[in-house]
């Protein structure tokens, strides 16, 4: 259906495309700017020559970043927290979603309400902190992986997905003598591979980017994840000497102003894995959002 466009419509189209392109550039620009800074010479940065591409290209900043013990260790910590945390997420969310997808489960309505209520009301920061502390999780990996293992939002997405699996499959498996656990792990979960791929990505990104729990619960610098180290370097403007513990000594530690390209290089290094998985994420992203929106 071709409709002759009037002059007004052509002008409208032009400005519409222009504004949208500008918006797209604005979304990308801060990341481009930081990338350019990270490869640039300190003097070029101070003189304000860097705005789009590296000036005086070199990799010094990255050499420092990759030879810094704190950054490397926090990178490893983040990888561990992300892996363990994501596994906990997937387990707990599956264990809630699968039974709740069964119409025959008595008390289904009550259980749903039990979970959903936690979105509406919470005990607050201090009581949650005290519970985690009482469990002995303070300053351990468990504080950053266990308390947030349940996600009601993603649980609803997964439950919706399980509900779409035809009942006949389960009936056949029951005749074959399979248990509920077997049916869940051998039939339902393999059939839901795409949604599991999406959930894994979302949970992993969440852990990679998370700052709050580590900030509150972790005390030893040797246990800090990347985001906390990044905060110290870029925002608090400090880079402590290798291997020192943050406890009590932070005030006395030598604080030096860090060059801008070093800060930018650290930002890039922290962001890189997210940018690398982004093409996969955005494929699942819109779909996942919509399931949650419709059923949530």
């Amino acid at each position, binding site marked *: 259906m071709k409709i002759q466009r009037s002059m007004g419509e052509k002008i409208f189209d032009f400005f519409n495309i222009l504004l*949208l392109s500008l918006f797209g550039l604005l979304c990308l620009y801060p990341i481009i700017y930081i990338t350019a800074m990270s490869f640039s010479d300190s003097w070029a940065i101070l003189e304000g020559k860097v705005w789009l591409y590296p000036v005086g290209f070199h990799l010094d900043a990255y050499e420092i970043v990759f030879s810094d013990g704190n950054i490397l260790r926090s990178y490893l910590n983040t990888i561990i927290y992300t892996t363990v945390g994501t596994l906990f997420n997937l387990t707990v969310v599956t264990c809630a979603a699968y039974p709740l997808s069964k119409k025959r489960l008595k008390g289904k309505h009550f259980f749903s309400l039990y*979970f959903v209520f936690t979105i509406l009301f919470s005990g607050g920061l201090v009581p949650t902190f005290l519970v985690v502390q009482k469990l002995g999780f303070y300053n351990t990996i468990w504080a950053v992986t266990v308390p947030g293992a349940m996600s009601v939002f993603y649980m609803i997405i997964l439950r919706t997905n399980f509900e779409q699996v035809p009942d006949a499959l389960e009936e056949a498996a029951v005749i074959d003598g399979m248990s*509920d656990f077997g049916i869940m792990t051998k039939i339902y979960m393999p059939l839901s591979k795409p949604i599991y791929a999406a959930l894994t990505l979302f949970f992993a990104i969440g852990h990679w980017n998370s700052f709050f729990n580590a900030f*509150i619960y972790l005390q030893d610098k040797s246990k800090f994840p990347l985001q*906390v180290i990044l905060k110290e370097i870029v925002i608090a403007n400090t880079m402590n000497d290798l291997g020192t513990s943050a406890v009590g000594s932070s005030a006395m530690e030598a604080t030096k102003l860090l060059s801008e390209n070093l800060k930018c290089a650290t930002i890039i290094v922290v962001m890189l894995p997210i940018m690398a998985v982004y093409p996969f994420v955005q494929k699942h992203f819109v779909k996942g959002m919509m399931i949650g929106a419709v059923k949530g």
Partner: protein
Amino acid sequence: MQATANSYVEKKKGILYFLKRDWMLYLIISIPIIHTFIFKYCPMGGIVIAFKQFNPMVGIFKSDWVGVKYFKQFLSDSTFWNVFKNTILLSIYNLLWSTPMPIFFALMLNEVRSTRFKKTIQTISYLPYFVSTVVMVGIIFQILSPTTGIVNHILSLFHIPPIMFMGESKWFRTIYIASGIWQGTGYSAIMYFAALTNIDQELYEAANIDGAGRWGRMIHITLPGIMPIIAVMFLLNIGNVLQVSFEKVILMQKPITIDVAEVINSYVYKRGLVGMDYSYGTAVGLFQSIISFVLLIFANKISKKLSETSLW
């Protein structure tokens, strides 16, 4: 028939029958139930310390009851009211600025004919959503740096002296909101895209025949078509008006900007955890939770009514 007959039989059976038949399902679901109990419901029980003089040495149960002492204390504290005001103002400004942006964005993108352009811009638009708060605030510090930041370099071209954006209270809200728009516009627009694709295409064709122009179609078909979802999103955001992001605020604030940058969440953290004034922090947190809860319930009620009536 079969189903009703079954459910009739099932009604007569006791709870033990179901526990026995589906024991494995109950065993499976007990994991998230226990998890939620420990990490969500136990803290709710822990709220009692707001009414006690909590001493970590003697424990929750043996600490003395003090009634509403801590509530009186913070309600008569001018610092608290300043923090409360900051939270409300930051939230409301944020709501007013960041609610229309995704709507404009979705409407504009909807008018684009080229699918490839549409897809590209959309994909780019929610990239910032995946940038972590720490990285984003780090980028803000870099861009707004008075010595090396791009913004001050541009200002210097116009002979404007460098501005300490992060070190002046008057800039805090602007930066908070602008960065929120950068991060959230593409993400929030997804809802509106979905609503836009659900609009009946025949309406547009009919409007074409009637000679409606682009504006006419947008105002009489597109906008009413997504009005329910706009209302719902707006109301749900109102429900969250006291929940200002702790991470972003604590990362952005500096001692010098604290008079506008301190919000309830960061205040509870500082008084309750850093200052170890557990009972006081819990009391303020409870105050916030109750208001949020009431607002959410209220907003949910209105949005249900609105989206139902607007369906007709």
